[in-house]
């Protein structure tokens, strides 16, 4: 059986077979994200030996670590981008990718997210936003939609969600895009771009959690959640002409920024060269 599956799925070559099957719940969007990431790596013909994947804590942190077959660093809650910063400085020629969830990267790790974008360090972040804390049992997240129910907002959520892509774009990232798990081909293209852009790149993936979020918000079937995404997604070009009231509860999708800015590790190495020159330290 297992052999049959391995021969049917070409992307399986990118996975750590001894770690399978995954711990993800049936219907989870995490599988789609892993699939899209593997496809992006495959289409770019990247050697997994040139990848270091870093993740934090939570369901989405498991997507690439341990399942993706590369050097993987599974870190403490919220800190994966800071860990990845050290990796990138030490291995500037490798692609350093962070895959983790909204609670991990945008809540406890929000500070590192903003500052990595400001620094514009060449790291690709795939942020899986499922609006909820899945692994701890479905509690309120900073991304939970206004009015939604969770185990710690059993009546309704009175807080307003953080708009992650908008925030990271404003902080200075080189590339920011947002898609949902219902936009798989666009998602693969965006991950490909994010991996090739020199600078900080973020791909936010709105991803279904039928077990913890859907079940409490009248969408216990994964397909219902995907239909909800499709119905409420608004392309960024269209959203520009819409009022905040019209955009309430909608998911703005597309590329937020794609620009060139000085990148941190090259700046750091340029500075080192200048200092070497200034003090006459270069070997004659």
């Amino acid at each position, binding site marked *: 059986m297992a052999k049959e599956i391995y021969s049917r799925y070409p992307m399986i070559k990118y996975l750590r077979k001894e770690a399978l099957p995954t711990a993800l719940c049936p219907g989870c969007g995490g599988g789609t994200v892993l699939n899209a990431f593997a496809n992006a790596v495959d289409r770019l013909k990247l050697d997994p030996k040139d990848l270091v994947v870093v993740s934090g804590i939570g369901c989405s942190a498991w997507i690439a670590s341990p399942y993706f077959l590369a050097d*993987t660093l599974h870190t403490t809650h919220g800190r994966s981008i800071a860990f990845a910063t050290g990796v990138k*400085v*030490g291995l500037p020629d490798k692609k350093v990718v962070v895959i983790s969830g909204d609670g991990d990267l945008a809540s406890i790790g929000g500070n590192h997210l903003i500052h990595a974008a400001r620094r514009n360090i060449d790291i690709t972040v795939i942020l899986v936003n499922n609006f909820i804390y899945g692994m701890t049992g479905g509690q309120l997240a900073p991304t939970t939609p206004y009015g939604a129910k969770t185990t710690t907002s059993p009546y309704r959520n009175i807080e307003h969600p953080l708009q992650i892509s908008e925030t990271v774009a404003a902080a200075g990232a080189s590339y920011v895009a947002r898609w949902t798990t219902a936009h798989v081909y666009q998602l693969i293209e965006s991950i490909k771009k994010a991996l090739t852009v020199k600078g900080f790149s973020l791909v936010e993936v709105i991803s279904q959690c039928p077990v913890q979020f859907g079940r409490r918000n009248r969408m216990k079937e994964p397909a219902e959640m995907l239909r909800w995404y499709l119905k409420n997604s608004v392309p960024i070009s269209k959203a520009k002409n819409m009022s905040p009231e019209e955009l309430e509860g909608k998911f703005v999708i597309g590329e937020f920024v794609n620009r060139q800015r000085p990148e941190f590790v090259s700046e750091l190495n340029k500075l080192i060269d200048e200092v070497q020159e200034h003090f006459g330290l270069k070997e004659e």
Partner: protein
Amino acid sequence: MIIRGDEPEQIRLIKKLYKPGNYFMQGNEAVAYGAIFAGCRFYAGYPITPSSEIAETMARELPKLRGYYLQMEDEIGSIAAMVGASWTGLKVMTATAGPGFSLMQENLGYAVMTETPLVLVDVQRSGPSTGQATKGAQGDFFQARWGTHGDHPIIALSPTSGQDAFWETVRAFNIAEKLRTPVVMLFDGVLAHTRELVKIPDIEEVEIAYRKLPKNEEEAKLPFGDPHGDGVPPMPLFGHGYFTHVTGSTHKENGLRDVYTPEVHDRLVRRIHRKIEGNRHVYEKYEEHFTDDAEILVVSWGVTARPALGAVLEAREEGIKAGLFVPKTVHPFPGERMRELGKKARAILVPEMNLGQMILEVQRFVNDDVLLKGVNKIGGVPLTVNEILREIRGVA
């Protein structure tokens, strides 16, 4: 391989930049130069009094050595970046003070669990909380030992002068590399800001250790194994195609997570303990003065060991048989030696700039019939020779 700091180019740079000889410098600067001589080429930190001159010196000097200085957004990010960089083969350090040390504790535990070499300098200041930010103290003795959660071993050193700080920093790096473990250095605000004579050696006189790397694919596949029986696994660095998996969760020898099997957790955590306990010869260090015939033993550490020595010298002049024992590696405590010395002493005094911390370690190793007394002072001002001498006379 890419462990930096030992290439001919680095030796050439150090020789060109730092002429051996006597310098007048702060303790903090001595720590920074010790790190540079030990091969540290990555520093990630967040400024905090009284440690900031370490960051400032590293920011100025590291680029000259093709090393990296990063000012992170906070202390948590600093130690996280260090762990990431250490897995790429860089020797890494950060420096902080009490509140920053508190923030670093979770990732210090991560470094223990993932067996990541790093050096964390805690320039102790008065507390709790913000306390006296600019003053020295010795209140983090147990924070170094028990600050992070779970059963874990830790190695902590504590220098007694600027000169000592240079060499103890070198030693901290060597221990971290040899045992693939984080090493804490408990410095203090008084020594950090004291300017005194520090002799910078020739780089050839400095012993520089490097972590054990896997000899073959087989060793590389077991990043948390114990192929040599010393508890220290070879470290497969990132970027070499080993597909290493590193996690702070309980993991098997191959790095993969297993949090369900009791034996796996037991085996991992006990090996990490055995690695530290079983390799005392690598890190155990203490200093003794007049302990051969000492009836009154002074046990002190860090900055306070200096007035303690002054007091012992003066007591000797007065004909009092006083001696001094200074643990330089304070964790794990040199308990065996303490026990031997405790048998000979009639009274033991433990001066420290806190309300009694190391005295509890001393107490574990001495009999009840010994008079054991703390000499404690807080408020940010170091103990004086006279204050300690008075106590010695009191028990003489």
